[in-house]
């Protein structure tokens, strides 16, 4: 897929990755023949096969595309440095198109046909809900960034680990910002009609109510809906002081912003990181429409008042700057992809084997593992690895190389 645009220069890694098309992988894609008659290989030099369930096309493709950039970069970097104990990393990508059916097929293919050692992804909660039990059945080590709470269950799915915050952690940050910083008492909660959007909106509404705030308007909007005026008007008439948005659709986000501007209403939007994606810049009518939008951010990807990223992140950005495009994506997506590959590689390096049990055991032992996206801690009873204190709120329009400045009033 895509044109030649992977130029591999073995001395200096040079890879241009553009947005629309996706690569087949730093190494070749599946070279395993149709019916799984694998060539016998000596374990030491057998490549490390990582399955990547990517929703590269479809409604919520923006995150997957970002993650993919990180994944490809990390694999290439590790291979250029000699691989993991001499073993090369092979990324086997399957575009699930956001369709749970394709995700199920691809997952089983990765497990039984491609015989991968670990799986990163999927990136959509809808897909993840369907494939998690399948991976559990084969005890396939799995890292994913999907937020729906029920996806992580150390009893049912001892093989599944989450490297992104859970929905609860996201919601805490958003709610905290609304209630404590913006000091609003009446909120509107808008979700889109996808699995994630509905789950997040419901969760949010319940949590706000529990905290004593008034949810004056709650709605699930089809992200195709061209006109956001009816919903915005209803929210305004109900007296909303802040609007919480849980949607992965940048088009929907942009239309909400444009509508707010048309209404000359300066209510703040708070919520999902997609509202800060570079995409949005192309879709809004005026740059000012993007003001007063505060989204989930991460300490590792936020610059301080002086405009500086945390040292490790800065180093990371400097390294990848000419190899990976950041301006139309988010740094945390790229970093997340890099961390996933590194976590798998590190596990194999530390244990010396690529067996599932060993990889899982290794992950369970991690305490404050220093990734680029976050410092992960896992244990046999806790597979939500992202530390709550690293979740922050960002100013959506402040993107620079995919990182953001902290939202106003946010304690650094």
């Amino acid at each position, binding site marked *: 897929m895509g044109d030649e645009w992977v130029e591999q220069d073995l001395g200096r890694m040079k890879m241009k990755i553009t947005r629309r098309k996706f690569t087949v992988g730093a190494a070749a894609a599946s070279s395993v023949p149709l019916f799984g008659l694998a060539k016998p290989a000596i374990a030491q030099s057998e490549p490390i096969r990582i399955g990547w369930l990517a929703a590269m*096309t479809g409604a919520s493709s923006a995150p997957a595309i970002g993650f993919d950039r990180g994944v490809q970069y990390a694999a290439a970097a590790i291979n250029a440095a000699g691989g993991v104990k001499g073993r090369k990393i092979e990324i086997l990508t399957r575009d699930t198109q956001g369709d749970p059916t394709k995700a199920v097929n691809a997952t089983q293919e990765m497990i039984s046909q491609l015989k991968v050692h670990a799986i990163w992804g999927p990136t959509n909660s809808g897909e993840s809900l369907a494939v998690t039990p399948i991976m559990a059945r084969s005890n396939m080590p799995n890292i994913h960034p999907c937020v729906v709470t029920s996806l992580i269950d150390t009893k049912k799915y001892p093989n599944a680990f989450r490297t992104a915050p859970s929905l609860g952690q996201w919601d805490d940050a958003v709610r905290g910002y609304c209630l404590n910083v913006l000091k609003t008492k009446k909120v509107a909660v808008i979700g889109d*009609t996808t699995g994630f959007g509905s789950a997040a909106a419901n969760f949010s509404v319940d949590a706000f109510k529990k905290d004593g705030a008034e949810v004056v308007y709650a709605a*699930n909007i*089809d992200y195709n809906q061209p*006109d956001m005026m009816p*919903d915005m*008007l209803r929210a305004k*008439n109900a007296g909303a002081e802040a609007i919480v948005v849980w949607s992965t659709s940048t088009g929907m986000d942009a239309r909400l912003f444009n509508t707010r501007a048309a209404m000359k209403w300066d209510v703040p939007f708070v919520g999902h990181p997609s509202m800060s994606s570079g995409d949005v810049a192309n879709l809004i009518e005026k740059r000012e429409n993007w003001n007063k939008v505060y989204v989930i951010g991460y300490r590792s990807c936020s610059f301080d008042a002086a405009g500086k990223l945390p040292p490790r992140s800065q180093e990371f950005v400097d390294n990848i700057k000419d190899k990976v495009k950041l301006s139309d994506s988010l740094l945390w997506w790229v970093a997340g992809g890099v961390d996933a590959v590194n976590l798998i590689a590190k596990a194999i390096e530390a244990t010396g084997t690529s067996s599932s049990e060993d990889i899982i055991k290794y992950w369970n032992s991690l305490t404050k593992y220093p990734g680029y996206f976050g410092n992960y801690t896992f244990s046999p009873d806790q597979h939500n690895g992202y530390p709550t204190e690293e979740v922050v709120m960002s100013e959506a329009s402040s993107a620079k190389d995919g990182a953001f400045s902290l939202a106003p009033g946010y304690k650094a």
Partner: protein
Amino acid sequence: MIASILASGLAVGAVYALIGVTYNTMFSASRVISFTAGMLGMLGGVFGSLFILRLGLPIVVGFALTMACCAVVGVITEFIAVRPVLKSLDQHLYVLSTLALSIMIQQLTATEWSTEPQRFPRLLDVGAGILDEKFWLPIVACGVVMGALEFLYRHTLVGKAFLAIAEDNFAARALGLPERNLRIASYALAGMIGAFAGFAGGELLLAFVANGSLLNFYGFVPVALGGLGNHRGAVVAGLALGIYQQAANFIVGGIFASVAVFALFIVLLLAVPQGLFGAPTVRRV
């Protein structure tokens, strides 16, 4: 609130009406109801965005190119999906061939262009709020198209020829009218009407590949209710549909709004299969 419903309702209704006119134009020329009508509307938006935003062409040039490209798509429809199946109209093969072509158009656009809605250029930069150009442009477009069609049918020879082949195919051919060329011209015209609809509605609906199936359905409702081949019926029904849909959006919210529209459509259609303004067809035995 009401103002908002009316503005967006009439606007989106005008787009639906024009797609209905597109359906009707193709039907009049060939007795075929083509699944590509909605796709033409979608392409109007996509091409507009492609030419003007991505390639940076001036608006007028972009508009002309969009119309031209969609006219070509219309002609391709005639060549590939319509002419070959004309002899077996009662076998309904045209439903399949136009369905196949429309899926191909949609998938091609989705993969090559984008699956997400893309921005559509601001055309005239006139108006704000309720009177923003994105609301009255489609309505103006609808008026222009209807006016142009009236002029075409009444005062030009070509237009009268179109009417002739719509009315009675065999008689027209017997009179020596070049039926094939007229049909190709009709499809090109339909392509342009669809493009105009998508272009004028671009700021409202954005350049979005999913608009294709949306417009296929919502553009067909005016045809079904207004009577097949009836342009005026399509306009009235289209505008009414737009207002009904936006009102439902406002009152019940997004999800139930589409249920409301579908349910009403199915009920009305079952009650009056030939449409509210159409004539009941007598079966020829």
